[in-house]
């Protein structure tokens, strides 16, 4: 056996140790890189030695310590976590606009009844009349503010939904382009780890945004699916868009059921939010009808019954409600026209103020404050439930994230140990070379000197 073979064996050890040091330093350098998976060199003995003596080592692969199962678990957890968190955040914004219990419609409503009842005590008091009008004014202003705030919130959420869909499309394109690069770079044995990391990061983000699932194929490429519909496949990717009803449309025309952030915003915008707006509008319509009806029961002169107190345009009651009466003298405070006109009769103001406790319209089953309380409590329950659900889902997603990070992440200590290990391996391989060198020295320089 040639001494040079041993030199080669030592060289293979040197090279493997170098690769080990390089890989460890790559891991350390990327210790804080999001989505980075630690890498390991896979070594095996070099086949091709003669007889019992081997001929060194070889690096078969630089592998990513990635576990598909952990990826899948995390992605299904972040899907729900992002869905519920986005929805919960939007709901709490809706709730904040309410201003209950101190600065909300309830307070303004209560002040209105008191203003009417104060007027009933002293119907000729101009200040009391003015007070009723300004009470109605601040009630309607508060309602319009709330409706306007909600409207703005809704349009912002829609813009953000469009932004999220745009992001989804960018990510789909990125996954597709990484797929192509992976295919170009060749076989699985030399899979480009850092490209795979980048793709996995995009897949994570897609799970957060859309709840999309993915399958990794043997050749290293990935396809993305949502509810069984393919979004990224070998041939290309399918950009998504929003329909008129904010539904998510596939280029094939199919409507997709999105999860994640997009799904959370969709659920808020198409289910929760219209319900709240309908609640507010319904309340405003009830308020307008019952106030106007009771006001019309009264008289402000011998010939004139009360005109409408509030008005709103159809379809957008909350946004457009306003006080229809400008002249405080036209408040119909008396319950009969006379004659002679009962100037000091406050019975109709009392009758209006009784809306505080009476059913708003006969048979409606609830007074106006009760109707409003039901709206507020409904929003409160929805928000509280969503927040609790979001809290649980976030915990689960964080736990899944920690589990995955603990499998994939870089441990500095571990890398230090690896570095030391490869450093020693390198030193030892160098020592082997010195030894072979010594052997050759004996052979070349000191052999055959007998008799010289």
């Amino acid at each position: 056996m040639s001494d040079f073979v041993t030199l080669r064996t030592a060289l293979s050890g040197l090279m493997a140790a170098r690769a080990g040091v390089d890989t460890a330093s790559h891991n350390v350098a990327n210790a804080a890189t999001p989505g980075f998976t630690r890498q390991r060199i896979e070594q095996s003995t070099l086949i091709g030695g003669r007889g019992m003596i081997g001929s060194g080592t070889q690096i078969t692969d630089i592998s990513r310590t990635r576990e598909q199962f952990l990826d899948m678990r995390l992605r299904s957890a972040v899907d729900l976590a992002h869905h519920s968190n986005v929805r919960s955040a939007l709901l709490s914004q809706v709730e904040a606009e309410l201003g209950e219990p101190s600065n909300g419609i309830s307070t303004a409503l209560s002040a209105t009844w008191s203003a009417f009842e104060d007027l009933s005590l002293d119907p000729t008091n101009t200040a009391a009349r003015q007070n009723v009008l300004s009470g109605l004014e601040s009630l309607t202003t508060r309602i319009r503010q709330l409706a306007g705030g909600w409207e703005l919130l809704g349009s912002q959420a829609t813009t953000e939904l469009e932004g999220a869909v745009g992001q989804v499309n960018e990510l789909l394109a990125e996954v597709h382009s990484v797929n192509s690069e992976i295919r170009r770079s060749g076989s699985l044995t030399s899979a480009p780890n850092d490209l795979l990391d980048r793709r996995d990061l995009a897949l994570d983000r897609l799970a957060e945004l859309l709840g999309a699932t993915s399958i990794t194929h043997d050749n290293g490429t990935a396809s993305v699916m949502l509810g069984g519909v393919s979004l990224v496949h070998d041939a290309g990717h399918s950009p998504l868009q929003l329909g008129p009803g904010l539904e998510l449309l596939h280029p094939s025309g199919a409507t997709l059921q999105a999860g994640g952030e997009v799904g959370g915003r969709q659920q808020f915008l198409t289910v929760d939010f219209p319900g709240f707006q309908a609640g507010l509008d319904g309340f405003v319509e009830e308020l307008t009808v019952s106030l106007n009806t009771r006001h019309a029961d009264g008289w402000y002169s011998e010939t004139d019954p009360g005109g409408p107190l509030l008005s709103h345009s159809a379809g957008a009651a909350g946004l457009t409600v306003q006080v229809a009466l400008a002249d405080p003298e036209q408040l119909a405070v008396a319950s009969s026209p006379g004659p002679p006109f009962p100037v000091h009769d406050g019975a109709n103001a009392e009758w209006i103020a009784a809306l505080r406790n009476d059913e708003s319209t006969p048979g409606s089953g609830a007074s106006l404050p009760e109707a409003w309380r039901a709206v507020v409590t409904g929003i409160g329950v929805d928000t509280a439930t969503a927040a609790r659900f979001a809290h649980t889902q976030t915990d689960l997603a964080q736990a899944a994230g920690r589990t995955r990070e603990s499998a994939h992440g870089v441990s500095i200590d571990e890398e230090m140990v690896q570095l030391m290990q490869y450093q020693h391996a390198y030193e030892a391989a160098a020592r082997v070379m010195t030894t072979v060198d010594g052997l050759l020295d004996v052979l070349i320089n000191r052999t055959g000197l007998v008799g010289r």
Partner: protein
Amino acid sequence: MRVTHQTTTTYALQRLQSRLGQLQKSQEQLASGTRIGKPSDDPAAMNKLLTLRSDEASADQAARNASDGLQRTSIADSHLRTLIDRLHRARELAIRAANTSAPSERNAIATEIRTIGEEAAAIANGNSGGRGLFSGHSDGPAVQQVAGVWTYTGDGGQVRRRVGEGDVVTVNVTGDDVFGFAAGRDVFSVLDDLADRIVTADAAGVQTSIAEVDTSMTNILDGLAKLGAATNRIEAGQIRTDDTRLAVQSEISKVESVDIAEAITDLQLHQVAFEATLGALSRSLQPSLTQFLR
């Protein structure tokens, strides 16, 4: 489980976040003094709180109604009492006139009775804050002479006050009833006729008039009794309203107020936990093998 520096850091940050959240929540509760800052804090309690606040506003209003009603009844009451006094005086004078024959004295008595009549009309037209006390809902005087005949010019309007939940009290009496217009013989005409009869020394007529003055007084006393009953009901209502307000306020405080002792304990507990988390974080993130390798 394999532990990496990244997992330690993220986990510590998540713990720190949740600790800080708890700390902020108890701080918020202490600063605002309320347990329920928004509906989702406790939707059921929020519903109750809004109901209670509405009840409180209603009770406040009932208290205002009651004091307004009380003011009206007491002013009307004092007016009617004065009128009764004057009628007693008129009755005394009438009896004296019946027993005297001197025309000058009768004339003097008749003059005083006419003055009492004018006084009675002024009392009947008395008002409080620009509103006639005995004229119902009408704006004009309660009584006046129309073409020489005393006439009730108010209306039958009943002034009602809600002094408690479902407790509405009528707080006025109308001149129609108390001054005898409804019974067909009003006190002002009685006094005028009495003066005339004294001047003309119509002894039988004076006796009739004395009986009529008595009837008038009975009418007024009926009115006083009604006002007294109304006053009693208002006062009872006030007591009930006060009780209701107290009960509602204590219920509100039960529902929304923070138990200060508990909140401060919570705050300190969370503060200690937060600081402990910070301390643990600083210790667990510091060491790494790199510090021990040379």
